[in-house]
């Protein structure tokens, strides 16, 4: 049985009629009070998983318990526990921020006497107090996301699902939202299930990360552990002349396995080698590079190691697939 504030998923499958198997047998556990980052490119199955866990879609197979309740058999109990901000900040452009909060508070069963105070508290908390009585159609993308978060919090949920909450946001709005999510976990003990396609977001926010690709979890663990699994750093060189690219790639291949990158030439270093070894060799061979950089393993390296593609490449691939289908 899943712990009261936790999430437990076993063999979850979701197939669309005439469509692909969007979620293909995933298992995962989220501990109470944990921020779990669900990382993957577009079309990987992140949003479908969220829709199943939040009771909006029934699974084709497998089980999922949220807060101790089965998402299929105990949907209303699950919904009573969770707050959800879906990928599309579905707001009514003709209502004000306060109208939205009032409606949400009523539908979530907040006693009438508490609604106005709760709305004010949340508007203040997400920095929308000054814009509370403006129609949402005049809000920026960041303001809409913040209002969406406030709406998800109206009934003080114990588990929060955020589906790509910062997609399309400017860096300032993004970091403000990160702070709020971190605060919710720290001060209120809220469990957070966060999907993202941003490596940095998963790295900064999540206690643990699950990496999903083509509906399957290909890696799971703390960001540090996942990166440690990759272990070795990579060296990235930018040739001075484009025509030297192949020659430099062949040269660097002597020091490790080549990496598929678009902007530079890169290799994952063999054990025991460091930047100084490369610099010396480059100097001795008279190889002409503009820039040479040693990078610690990132989650993108983890994704690359597990799927053979970079996250960016996977996103482009998914977009191309979508265009081909559509």
């Amino acid at each position, binding site marked *: 049985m899943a712990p009261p504030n936790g999430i437990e998923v076993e063999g979850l499958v979701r197939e669309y009629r005439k469509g692909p198997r969007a979620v293909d047998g995933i298992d995962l556990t989220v501990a109470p009070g944990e921020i779990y980052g669900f990382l993957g490119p577009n079309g990987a199955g992140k949003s479908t998983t969220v829709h199943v866990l939040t009771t*909006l879609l029934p699974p084709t197979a497998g089980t999922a318990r949220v807060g101790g309740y089965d998402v299929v058999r105990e949907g209303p109990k699950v919904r009573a526990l969770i707050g959800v901000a*879906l990928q*599309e900040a*579905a707001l009514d452009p003709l209502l004000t921020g306060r109208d939205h909060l009032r409606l949400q508070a*009523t539908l*979530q069963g907040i006693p009438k006497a508490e609604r106005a105070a709760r709305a004010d508290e949340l508007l203040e908390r997400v920095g929308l107090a000054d814009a509370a009585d403006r129609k949402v159609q005049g809000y920026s993308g960041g303001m809409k996301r913040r209002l969406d978060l406030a709406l998800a919090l109206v009934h*003080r949920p114990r588990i929060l699902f955020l589906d790509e909450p910062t997609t399309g946001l400017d860096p300032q709005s993004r970091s403000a939202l990160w702070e709020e999510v971190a605060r919710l976990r720290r001060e209120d003990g809220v469990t957070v299930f966060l999907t993202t396609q941003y490596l940095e977001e998963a790295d900064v926010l999540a206690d643990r990360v699950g990496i999903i690709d083509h509906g399957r979890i290909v890696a799971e663990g703390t960001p540090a552990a996942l990166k440690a699994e990759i272990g070795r750093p990579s060296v990235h060189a930018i040739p001075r002349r484009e025509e030297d690219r192949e020659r430099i790639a062949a040269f660097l291949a002597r020091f490790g396995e080549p990496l598929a990158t678009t902007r530079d030439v890169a290799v994952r270093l063999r054990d025991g080698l460091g930047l100084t070894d490369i610099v010396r060799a480059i100097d001795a061979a008279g190889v002409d590079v503009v820039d040479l950089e040693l990078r610690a393993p990132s989650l993108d390296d983890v994704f690359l190691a597990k799927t053979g593609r970079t996250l960016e490449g996977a996103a482009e691939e998914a977009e191309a697939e979508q265009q081909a289908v559509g």
Partner: protein
Amino acid sequence: MRAPSAGTVEQVGAIARRSLVRTARQPASVIPPLVFPVALMAVNAAGLASSTRLPGFPTDSFLAFALAVPFIQGALFSTMNAGTDLARDVQTGFVNRLALTALRDWALLAGQLAGVVALGLVQALFYLAVGLATGVDFRAGPAGVAVLLAYAVVVSASFGALGAYLAFRTGSGEAIQALFPVLFVFLFISSMNAPRNLIGVDWFRTAATLNPVSYMLECVRSLIIEGWDIQALALGFGFAAAVGLVSVPLASRALRTRLTRT
């Protein structure tokens, strides 16, 4: 942690309030249903006034005869607007937001229809005011006004449910807009501009006789120009209620399918 579920009445009220606020904040949703039917009535009244001289025409005021049309036409406008608004909610994911609350399925439909009915009542009062201001003598008197408003409630709810059904079924505002001409064909092939017994073209008279919209118009018309015609009232209420008896369950089923929560 969530407090006990909101009372159903409160839920219906909250959804109805949102529907009304949305409508009030969109002049394009309020003004055309009020102005266009009245403008069409004025044009028809000016052009067809002489038809009151036909033997058997039930009144000497074509305006009194034509005043029934805005009531039905306005309801059709409301159907379109309500349906389009709901379809937008489906398209934007707002319905998913509602699905994630403790909102009961039927409370969403009831709230939405309550908003449409409130707008329908405002429209009915407006058309009535226009009629009285232009000298139409409302033969059924104050009690007739009450019956007329009750009829506005039934028609708005029935056609509003039809719009809701289409919205939940298709999830497309464009699909609902595409229905608009179809509904208007029903309006035009009816006793909109002449009593059925005075329509000279056989196929048109037959079509108008088979068309339920004729009986809905004649129900309103009877209150305005005749007083109390129980048969006309029964047929008008009967057909409007029949639309509702079909459209409300259809809308309810389509809503349950659309709100695919476990």
